[in-house]
């Protein structure tokens, strides 16, 4: 008995030692960051809520940028906290209820926050457009693409198809709602096939011809478009994308009410990955915070790092972002109808 116990003891000690050495290796890398910090003017712990899982795209962005906000925001010490659950609703709720003292802010995808609010998703306690928007870190066009062998070549073909367009979807995400709004605006019939496991699954369905098309980030679709496995037929971006001058944007091909629909979608994608705080933040703190984020996102060191990690930074100042969100707030109610219809169709 005694011998065995001493064996465990040795084991624990050995494991600990090996871990300490392992940690030594790991912690070397982030250490130099600390040196850059300027003299603390007013030391304060700021919590950055990331309502997405650790290690995923949104979290990687947040953790990449956070040290640079610290650097340009005197005295700030940012603690990144992943609060996951219900597709980001849990973390966003927590931000909504936190004090607007500038000590808590969040970073996530604006479209998912907005659409969770508009679709009255389970458990939503916030109003998406009432948050204090602090700055955008990145955005990229989203593309509606059909399979390489598809009968459709332009967006107009969809309305002429004379049958519902099969749209493989992974659930009630922003692309699901965007497709519903798009179908309403362009006047084609839509058959949303929900239940696919993820983006890979829907992409393959489109390539195989099992589904007609799907909406995805342009960078995800790029290799497949280059290889001819997918054809892009509509872009969700304010202007035409440089590499695809022939593919129209959603705004160009619509007018009147249909264009209003597309404007909400496009603006929503413009706001994309952004920092925001609780509603009613103190104007002075807000100005300070926005300035810090703008400076951080222009830091050459960050830009170099981002380019290396293929996580492009496409910044937008807090004031401008807030204006975009306000514009969305004015017209967002219009798309609720088609969204509700889309939800009813899959019940």
């Amino acid at each position, binding site marked *: 008995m005694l011998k065995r116990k001493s064996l465990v003891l040795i084991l624990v000690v050995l494991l600990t030692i090996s871990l300490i050495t392992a940690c030594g290796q790991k912690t070397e890398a982030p250490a130099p960051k600390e040196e850059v910090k300027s003299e603390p003017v007013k030391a304060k712990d700021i919590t950055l809520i990331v309502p997405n*899982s650790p290690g995923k795209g949104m979290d990687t962005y947040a953790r990449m940028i956070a040290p640079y906000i610290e650097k340009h925001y005197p005295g700030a010490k940012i603690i990144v906290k992943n609060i*996951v*659950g219900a597709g980001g609703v849990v973390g966003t709720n927590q931000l909504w209820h936190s004090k607007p003292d500038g000590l808590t802010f969040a970073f996530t995808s604006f479209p998912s926050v907005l659409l969770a609010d508009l679709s009255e998703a*389970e458990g939503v306690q916030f109003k998406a457009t009432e948050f204090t928007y602090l700055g955008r870190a990145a955005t990229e066009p989203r593309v509606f693409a059909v399979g390489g062998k598809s009968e459709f070549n332009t967006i107009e073909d969809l309305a002429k198809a004379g049958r519902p367009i099969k749209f493989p979807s992974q*659930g009630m995400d922003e692309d699901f709602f965007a497709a519903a709004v798009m179908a309403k605006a362009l006047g084609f019939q839509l058959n949303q096939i929900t239940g696919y496991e993820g*983006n890979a699954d829907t992409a393959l369905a489109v390539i195989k011809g099992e589904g007609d098309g799907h909406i995805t980030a342009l960078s995800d679709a790029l290799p497949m478009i280059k290889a001819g496995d997918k054809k892009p037929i509509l872009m969700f971006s304010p202007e035409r994308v440089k590499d695809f001058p022939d593919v129209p944007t959603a705004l160009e091909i619509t007018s009147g009410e249909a264009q209003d629909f597309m404007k909400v979608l496009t603006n929503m994608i413009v706001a994309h990955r952004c920092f925001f705080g609780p509603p009613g933040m103190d104007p002075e703190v807000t100005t300070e915070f926005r300035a810090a984020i703008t400076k951080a996102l222009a830091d050459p060191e960050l830009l170099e790092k981002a380019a290396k*990690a*293929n996580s492009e930074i496409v910044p937008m100042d807090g004031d401008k972002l807030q204006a975009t969100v306000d514009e969305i707030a004015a017209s967002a109610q219009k798309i609720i109808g088609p969204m509700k219809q889309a939800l009813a169709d899959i*019940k």
Partner: protein
Amino acid sequence: MLTASWHGLLALFDPTSILFMSIGVLFGVVIGILPGLGGIAAMALILPFSLSLEPVAALAMLLGAHVATIFGSSITSILFNIPGASKSIALCFDGYPMTQRGEGARALGAAAMASLIGGLIGAIFLTLTLPIMKAIMMALGPPEYFIMALWGLSVIAIFSSGSLLKGLTAAGFGLLLSFVGMDPVSGTARFTFGSLFLLDGFDFAVVVIGLFAVSEMIKLYITGGSIVKAQTTSEMGSVWIGVRDVFIHWKLVVRSSLLGLFIGALPGVGASIGGIAAYGMAAQTSKNKETFGTGNVEGVIAPEATNAANEGGGLVPTLGFGIPGGESMAILLSAFIVMGITPGRDMLENHMDIVFSIVWIIVVANVITTIGGLLLAKHLVKVTTLPSSVLIPVLLPICLVGAYAIKGRIKDVIVVVVFGIIGYIMDKYKYSRADMAIGMVLGLMLERYMHISIKLYGNLFFLTRPVTLILFLVVLGTIFYPFIRGYIANKRNADESGVQ
């Protein structure tokens, strides 16, 4: 082709690449051992660090970590009934009974070797059959995935040793638990009682830690003693017995590896059912079917070989189309893009050396993991001979913290304890926990692919699509083959006795 393969190998045999791969492997084993965390966590944690390296070194480190997690999770599944990652759940079914019998070292040896050969076969066949695999991937769709999930359910019969009724009840329980949360098909919140925590459903890894590991701690306290209930003779020797087992069952290893490669190539089917499917296949084709679930080494070899080969299969959609086959492949894909390589057709046409480097990395990482595993095995097994009075207070906190670390939600710790108690009761009254776990894995998969198939091809989708129909018949065949074979054997016996 051969020169490209050679160049790929040469690029790998650079000291820095080997060094970083070894670091990756070491890291992967540690992550794999931790309950609940698997290859995805390992790659996500290592990604930022690897980006500053040369492309081949970075890939070596990432893939090395990923490959090593498989064996790492198998270690704890076999020794403590704690699945290190959800895909290694099948290792618990026979590996843990082997440990209890004092054959832990043999099981570890067999697992390490099966992992090596599975990884090799997966990698080699991947290069040889990439065009064929691509064609298979294109030919199969949701209706076929549905049929495959159905086939997975037939494994339930293997564990229903006490009573088929109890086994089916346990499976039904598992199926229903998998439906808790937001239904991805209809957007309905099911069985959540307004709780946002339940809206995300039960995390499979958390439930399994409770069901198998925490319940084992409860049981261990009651029975006392240590995990090992009987001592076999020389432990040092049994590692090599395990290695020999793999060569004795080489046909099983080959079959399991090809199955793993095949399943890995289908995004949406994923790795989780690979181990279970391999286990079912092994049980149905084995000469010693009756000992499955009680510590049959074949039940360790098959899922381990499948899991290792799975990695090769997971690369098919990535290499063929630039589509990530799973979450871990999504991380790999982002690494490719950073290196300026566009996966997909371009890669197959212009960067064949990198494709081969990847294949060789998997091979070499497997070799490193296996050698390490074989050397470590006899030391690791000693831990299971420790008395429960030491094991419980040390392992229980690790299980609970592991459950917490998966998503960082404190309520998961409550879930793990609740399922620990449920698992203990189910085990005591012979409701198979394995059946329940299988039900949980397959529940959502069955449901989602059934709904998709109905929407795409109508209610009778399994009759109207030729590929689906053939697969359906094959599945029916494998389920009923034992009955038919038994019937024929009986008849032949009757005939022979009739002649006399």
